[in-house]
């Protein structure tokens, strides 16, 4: 039996388990011994000791486990707490029940009364007087559980009752204690499960709290242009976990045209949020101010607050696209590429939802931006969007591909990939829309590379400046200064002397 064949989790074949256990253990990697390549099975001294782990039970069926390991409550010979066991059990008992195993000590675990569990060999001590409970205790427990409505509450109560009762058993006070006057354990507050997400079953209480809070807000402020949101309770069953968000969406009431941008830390008040018609007017107003004063910081802030109002009201339509596109173009003009990236990624998701807009223009920007960031994965993604992906609902995809902006951007991409500086600087002046602002950022790198290459490969006669200028995308004076800055040496006739230049 070769090692490769023994267990190979990546080999999807069913391993025919005639259960040759020696083959099973022969893979040295998995062997607990210090791996010996001959694959022999030698006993690990550690298994015999096994001290540092938590007390491990012997491998025989765990029949002799102490009572502390067994299930919390010994309901043997009692009918305690039928309220919650029987509700569940009727559902379970309708399932098919396997027969057999009557020989085991199944009578020990009467707590759950699950037919299939009854046949399990539960680790319980044999039935004796110890498991009988006083009636007062039984009624105490019954009362404790009767208050509980949810499984989580019952668990918590159980957790509190268990030490109480087992402590009484150990100290021998089980029968002597006055259970009738024992105070009932308090119900726990609604708690989250200690795992990642809140238990889906308990979400409902939080949502009810939230929806009531929204309702209060809506009632508290009288100026309302729309009827209050519906009191639709999100129903969440185990089967259907669709949430209805409409009940929680804010509908704004403010009429301000200008609004300072503040980062939100919680749900905003409706009177601070502007509804869509107001936002349209606000955008117009802001753009007029931009034309007049050219104050980018102010305009950027205003548009961000417009975007924020659109987001909290979950407005995703052509107006939203218009806002983001306008902002995108403004950021390009003003050298704010970080903000531009936010706009264009949001636009990408909006376009994918099928909303119309200037898709080719922004597709081109997106491509140029990915080239600027030198991220091959983004470029591949974009190529995929343009050619391969069929599931995306972008409207008019076939026309997008033929659009001159996109064609130009693709040609640029190709030129840059092949390091073709001549094509780059030829395509540079004819960049449509605002793409030039992104290319301005890419150009210096390419220009320097070009100068370096020309300097190395053109000999022996000097290179004329005007031709060089065309190659570098500069002309006249700026070209000379650029060349000199980077270590180029010009001869008497103002031509680049490549032999003496040392471009850095």
């Amino acid at each position, binding site marked *: 039996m070769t090692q490769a064949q023994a267990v190979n989790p990546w080999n999807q074949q069913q391993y025919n388990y005639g259960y040759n256990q020696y083959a099973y253990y022969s893979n040295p990697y998995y062997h607990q011994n210090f791996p010996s390549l001959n694959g022999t099975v030698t006993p690990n001294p550690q298994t015999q000791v096994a001290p540092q782990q938590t007390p491990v*039970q012997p491998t025989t069926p765990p029949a002799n486990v102490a009572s502390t390991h*067994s299930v919390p409550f010994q309901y043997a010979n009692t009918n305690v707490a039928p309220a919650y066991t029987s509700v569940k059990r009727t559902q379970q008992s309708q399932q098919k029940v396997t027969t057999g195993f009557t020989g085991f000590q199944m009578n020990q675990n009467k707590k759950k009364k699950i037919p*299939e569990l009854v046949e399990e060999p539960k680790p319980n001590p044999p039935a004796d007087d110890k498991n009988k409970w006083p009636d007062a205790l039984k009624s105490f427990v019954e009362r404790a559980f009767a208050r509980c409505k949810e499984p989580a509450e019952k668990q918590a109560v159980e957790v509190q009752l268990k030490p109480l009762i087992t402590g009484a058993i150990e100290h021998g006070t089980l029968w002597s204690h006055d259970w009738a006057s024992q105070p009932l354990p308090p119900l726990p507050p609604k708690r989250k499960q200690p795992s990642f997400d809140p238990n889906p079953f308990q979400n409902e209480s939080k949502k009810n709290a939230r929806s009531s809070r929204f309702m209060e807000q809506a009632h508290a402020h009288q100026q309302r242009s729309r009827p209050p949101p519906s009191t639709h309770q999100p129903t969440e069953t185990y089967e259907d976990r669709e949430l209805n968000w409409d009940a929680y969406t804010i509908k704004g009431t403010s009429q301000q045209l200008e609004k300072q941008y503040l980062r939100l830390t919680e749900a905003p008040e409706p009177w601070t949020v502007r509804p869509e018609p107001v936002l349209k007017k606000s955008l117009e107003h802001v753009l007029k101010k931009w034309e007049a004063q050219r104050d980018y910081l102010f305009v950027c802030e205003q548009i961000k607050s417009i975007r924020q109002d659109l987001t909290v009201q979950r407005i995703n339509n052509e107006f939203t696209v218009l806002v983001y596109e306008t902002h995108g173009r403004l950021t390009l003009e003003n050298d704010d590429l970080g903000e531009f990236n936010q706009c264009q990624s949001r636009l990408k998701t909006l376009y994918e939802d099928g909303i119309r807009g200037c898709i080719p223009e922004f597709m081109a920007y997106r491509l140029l931006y990915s080239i600027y960031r030198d991220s091959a*994965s983004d470029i591949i993604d974009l190529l995929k969007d343009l*050619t391969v992906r069929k599931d995306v609902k972008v409207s008019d995809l076939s026309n997008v591909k033929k659009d001159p902006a996109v064609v130009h951007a693709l040609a640029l991409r190709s030129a840059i990939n092949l390091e073709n500086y001549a094509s780059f600087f030829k395509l540079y002046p004819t960049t449509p829309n605002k793409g030039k602002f992104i290319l301005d950022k890419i150009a210096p790198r390419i220009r320097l590379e070009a100068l370096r290459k020309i300097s190395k490969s*053109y000999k022996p*006669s000097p290179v*004329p400046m005007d031709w060089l200028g065309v190659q570098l995308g500069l002309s006249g004076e700026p070209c000379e200064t650029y060349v000199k800055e980077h270590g180029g040496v010009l001869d008497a006739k103002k031509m680049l002397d490549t032999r003496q230049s040392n471009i850095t």
Partner: protein
Amino acid sequence: MMALFGYFNTLSTAIVKQDSLLLSSLFKKSINKLHPATRNVDQAIETKSLSEIDEFCDGRLGNKQFEEMLAFHFKGIICLQKKFYSEAYIHQANLIQALMRYLEDTEASGWLMAATNTTSLDLRVVAKLADKEQKKKGQKEDKQSDAARILNSCFSICFKDKAPLNVSKKWGILGVSNQLFKIYFSLNNIRLGRTLVNSVRPMKNPSLEDSRFPISQLVTFKFFAGALAMFEGKFSLAEEDLSYAFRRCTFKSHKNKRLILRYLIPVKILRGKMPKDSLLKKYNMSEFADLAKAVQLGDLRSFDQIMQQHQDFFIRSGIYLILEKTKILAYRNLCKKICMISQRPEAKNKFILDLFQRALAWLGVTMDIDDIECILSNLIFAGYIKGYISHQARCLVLSATNPFPPLKDLKI
């Protein structure tokens, strides 16, 4: 139930004997259950409801921490059967975190590495299913990034283990990092794997190529490291890793070999080593055959045609950009041919640029002299051609000795 009894029994045995393989096959969620004890466990468990599981598992194994893990495992099975993938993910995440807590607390827990491997595999698979479900519902897909976060902490637990090698957790490193890589690939964010490769590659004790790591994991790791290097442009490193992976990958996994070749062939072509026809035929990769031939002949027309024809395949595999770069090699080979053909005895090494323009026009590619000069200057700068361009005379002057050095001598 008989099945459950047998299952619990086998599980306790596995824990006592520290048999990792057994434990891992018992905690497995994938369809192919290897161990006979796990048969029918699914049917036995599915009749229960979630809240019963905790009590149900209590006291079964005699080991609280494993019982906790068992409870999460069962809950996960129930959710998977009902196809609630997001919930199943939560339980699987809890399972692996409980396992990680046990690993951290216990000193010599290296025997659990196979179980760690299985649970991380399941975590990744369930995270992917959960993300698909969330996407359908229009929610944000965050389960896979969450899984990546968990696996990262698992990786650091295994990596920082100071125990002696025979009980060390370090043997689990490759398994966990492979799962992480797969998540990153699926999230289209491969460069996150850079830190992973940077920490694993210089490992000394045990070293990466240690024969005690299972070869399958090593091959997978090398594959991912090579792919990462390729996307970052480090082609020599990529070639090294991918060749190793291809060589050591067993001939039985034809599909895996094909995947490795998909990245290895472009890298090799870029370095000038063309694939043999027999290889391409064996692995059914005819697209590369035509492309390699076009590059070798310098046939620009068919190069463009092939790129256009197989564009979908190349873009989907993510190798389009690299294959485009092989066009430079095609230019080099074309120049070599032109120079060899049009050598004149009186001016042995001088070639007017007009020649190139005519040759390209014949191939159906229209370029003006500036473009041609640019291409040639690129080739000279990169070292493919030894010579210089004279701008005034508008010609290319080659060096007398070895103007087109063989590609294997070049450093790319």
